[in-house]
């Protein structure tokens, strides 16, 4: 097939909604990088100032600006993969004649070490043993504990429309559009206690109602599938094995709020998921479940996939909206919130994949059913992505309120034999560490917040007693420094300064070191503009709290930051 010309690519996308990202990907794919010529053509075609477009492109990790850049394998060097030999893999790829590039966590912590090459994700430990394959299904819960979003995910054929419908899929949507008012749908979601599963925990029913009530339109539903938090890989699983679950959830949200258009903002690092989602959307459209005249009514919902390009901050909903709109993906100032001023400044629901996927079962089984899935007073379930030094890493849908120890030891098999758990992270990396007695928490926000952390998106990395917590903290902080968008001062400078201090720079007395780091922590937590800068210092704060001796060795001890050699 002859290569598409600039004009053809522009003609294909120019009049589509949210055209910039797909256009950039189209040129990136065609040329193997984003050439000056390509950017000039896009800037002209979309009437974006060329300097803005250039600046925005450089923001994303995965857009290559030099020839054949797309061809270079990208290797995860996140905290878990670093423990699992990312450096060895990089060396082996280099020996095999490649030019491997490090990348932040691409959400395969259950199968380290992932490599993205073109449109494929491979996993393995050496260049010669890299394999591609679907994401692993979740291990079955012990004792047949009832699940919500995972209930049917292990059924064969579930990812296709027929399989999904076989399990009762689209029953919720059918019930809603043929027998319920939008308000009634919202009432059920509200009563279920469902709250944002991407980390912020905002009650879903309230969000939908706010959008339904907001003046102006067209309204938009956005699925936040930019699962960028290191150690989180649940949304990938949901989309790969149960795409219709989320899509039906989006259609329900659209019906409930009066939205007519939707986007799935999918992170770059899930290339195979693009095809899965687009296939599912096409199937649903053909079956009258999306598009115009859904289920024979006048309800219409136009759904598109938009692929990100590698930027953790785009998981922050207002950055995501800016990214969708083709703007520089800095977070917006809030208020106003997306429920009134979202995509194109119009009312918009931004929900996490898991949240959306929870909606159809809730509507079918009822609010009470969902509330009852939680343990004790807690309503519902949460998917936990578990990785690191643990026997059975993977995704677990747990009753909210489950003791952490039960998950770690009973569900996932505990630490490697002969080891004990030194620390775990919470909320991927954003919640910092829990260690010692504070591991005695239950998996719900009140319990975890009482320890100065939070559950967030549900990523938990486990570090056994062989790990150097200074190194773990440094590698984690490097991630935040790398991903800091650069908009606000405390985060932009603070993450950098914390990395330097974890590398062994900074004051050489423990008191002065701790003083500086504590000041940075406090200012970042108190004054940063968004969650990234507010959360990053939880790492250093919890490091100082749980591991004061390691800090003392790091600052004052021989070898400074290098500390005693440890396996890793």
């Amino acid at each position, binding site marked *: 097939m002859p290569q598409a010309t600039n004009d053809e690519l522009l003609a294909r996308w120019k009049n589509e909604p949210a055209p910039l990202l797909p256009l950039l990907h189209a040129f990136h794919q065609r040329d193997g990088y984003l050439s000056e010529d390509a950017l000039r053509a896009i800037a002209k075609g979309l009437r974006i100032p060329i300097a803005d477009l250039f600046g925005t492109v450089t923001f994303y990790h995965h857009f290559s600006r030099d020839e054949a850049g797309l061809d270079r394998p990208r290797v995860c060097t996140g905290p878990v993969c670093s423990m699992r030999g990312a450096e060895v893999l990089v060396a082996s790829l280099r020996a095999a004649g490649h030019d491997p590039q490090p990348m932040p966590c691409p959400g395969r912590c259950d199968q380290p070490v992932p490599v993205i090459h073109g449109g494929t994700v491979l996993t393995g430990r050496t260049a010669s043993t890299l394999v591609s394959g679907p994401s692993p299904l979740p291990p079955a819960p012990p004792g047949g504990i009832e699940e919500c979003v995972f209930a049917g995910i292990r059924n064969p054929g579930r990812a296709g429309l027929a399989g999904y419908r076989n399990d009762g899929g689209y029953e919720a949507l059918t019930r809603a559009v043929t027998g319920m008012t939008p308000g009634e749908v919202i009432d059920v979601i509200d009563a279920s206690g469902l709250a944002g599963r991407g980390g912020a925990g905002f009650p879903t029913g309230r969000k939908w109602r706010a959008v339904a009530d907001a003046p102006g339109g067209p309204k938009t539903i956005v699925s936040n599938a930019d699962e960028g938090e290191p150690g989180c890989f649940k949304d990938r699983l949901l989309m790969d094995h149960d795409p219709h679950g989320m899509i039906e959830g989006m259609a329900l949200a659209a019906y409930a709020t009066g939205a007519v258009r939707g986007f799935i903002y999918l992170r770059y690092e899930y290339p195979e998921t693009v095809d899965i989602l687009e296939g599912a959307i096409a199937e649903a459209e053909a079956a009258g479940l999306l598009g115009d005249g859904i289920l024979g009514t006048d309800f219409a919902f136009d759904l598109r996939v938009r692929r990100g390009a590698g930027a953790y901050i785009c998981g922050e909903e207002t950055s995501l909206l800016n990214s969708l709109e083709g703007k520089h993906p800095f977070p917006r100032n809030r208020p106003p919130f997306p429920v009134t001023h979202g995509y194109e400044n119009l009312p918009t629901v931004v929900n996490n994949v898991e949240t959306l996927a929870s909606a159809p079962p809730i509507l079918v089984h009822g609010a009470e059913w969902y509330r009852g899935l939680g343990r004790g007073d807690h309503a519902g379930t949460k998917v936990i992505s578990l990785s690191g030094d643990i026997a059975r890493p993977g995704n677990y849908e747990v009753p909210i309120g489950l003791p952490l120890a039960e998950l770690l030891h009973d569900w996932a098999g505990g630490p490697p034999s002969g080891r004990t758990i030194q620390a775990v992270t919470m909320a991927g990396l954003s919640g910092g560490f829990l260690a010692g007695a504070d591991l005695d928490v239950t998996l719900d926000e009140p319990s975890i917040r009482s320890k100065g952390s939070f559950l967030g998106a549900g990523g938990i990395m486990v570090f056994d007693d062989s790990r150097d917590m200074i190194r773990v903290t440094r590698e984690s902080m490097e991630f935040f420094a790398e991903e800091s968008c650069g908009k606000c001062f405390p985060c932009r400078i603070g993450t950098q300064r914390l990395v330097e201090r974890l590398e062994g720079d900074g004051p050489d007395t423990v008191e002065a070191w701790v003083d500086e780091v504590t000041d940075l922590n406090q*200012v970042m937590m108190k004054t940063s503009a968004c969650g990234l800068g507010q959360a990053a210092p939880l790492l250093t704060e919890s490091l100082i709290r749980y591991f004061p001796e390691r800090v003392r060795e790091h600052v004052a001890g021989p070898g400074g930051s290098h500390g005693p050699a440890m396996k890793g």
Partner: protein
Amino acid sequence: MMKRNGTPATNGARLTMTLDGEKVAFTRGETVYEVAERHRKEIPTLCYDPRLEPFGGCRLCVVELEGARNPVASCTTEAQPGMVVRTRSAALEVQRRILMEMVASENRDTDVDPMHGYASQEMADLLDRYDARSGRFEGAHSGTSRPDDDNPFIKRDYENCISCYRCVRVCAEQEGDYAISVMNRGFDTQITTEFGGLLKDSACTFCGQCIQTCPTGALGDLKALANREVPGETETTRTICPYCGVGCSVDVMTRGEKIVGVLPAMDGPANEGSLCVKGQFAFDFVHHPDRLSTPFVRDDDSGKLRPASWDEALDRAAGKLRKVVKEHGRRSVYGIASGRAPHEAAYMMQRFIRAGLGTNHIDNCSRA
């Protein structure tokens, strides 16, 4: 940038909030920062330019808002009825000091010559105010300077950049030129043109607005800086730009008898701080050696123009004009006034013709 929704004031009722314990009125749409400024609270900020959309980057303007978990940026927070805000507290002052120490830690210089531009002392002033030259948080510096940019107007010394993006925002929001943007992210953030090239090869119109809004001297007025060794105190005089008909207000900077630079007048009614390349940079023709400094008369012998005294020149002109009037009548003299000189020149020219000669043979250069 987000546009704020203007909600009409409710029944004209007075909107009030509590600011540092005092009940104060505000109008719908005002930000907490704007209200506080009106009450002279002197909230520190580095990313704020009143002409631009609030950005919320520097976080120095954070204030305590009752009911909020963290302090909020006053520049991006709209005042709401009943809000209780504290602009100063021990905790806020500590946070601001630490922020200033962090800012100081990323730059090569913390003090620059004021000739850099209108706002160039803002960072240095805040460092003094918060006693933040402690040297704490030492570490890598951010920004890469562009000494390769050979343009004669705009110094691009990004090693002194603090990524407040006022330059980028003024270029986009105030000028509509979009010549510069933000490249990379986090600590690697860099102000850039398209593809990192020279300003000359970009959409830059050299209006100089980026220079004038830069709070650190990362951007500097090269023409003014060339005069930094001129002795004397810098004084400013408010006048109007000598070029097109827009009538931009400028503050001419002088030292002794020399014009050393031009500052845009932020309160200029026609321009509100904007200027173009000519108004900002084309001022030194005034001191050009080609300037006429004496009258000239045409020498009777050589037929060439030669310098003359005022007396001689005025007498010569008057004599010649009288002769023309005598020979051809008063209607044979014509006056052309300038569209570049002040009213008084044009008025005096028409007065000369009308009151002196009694004709209407007067025009100006607008027909060409």
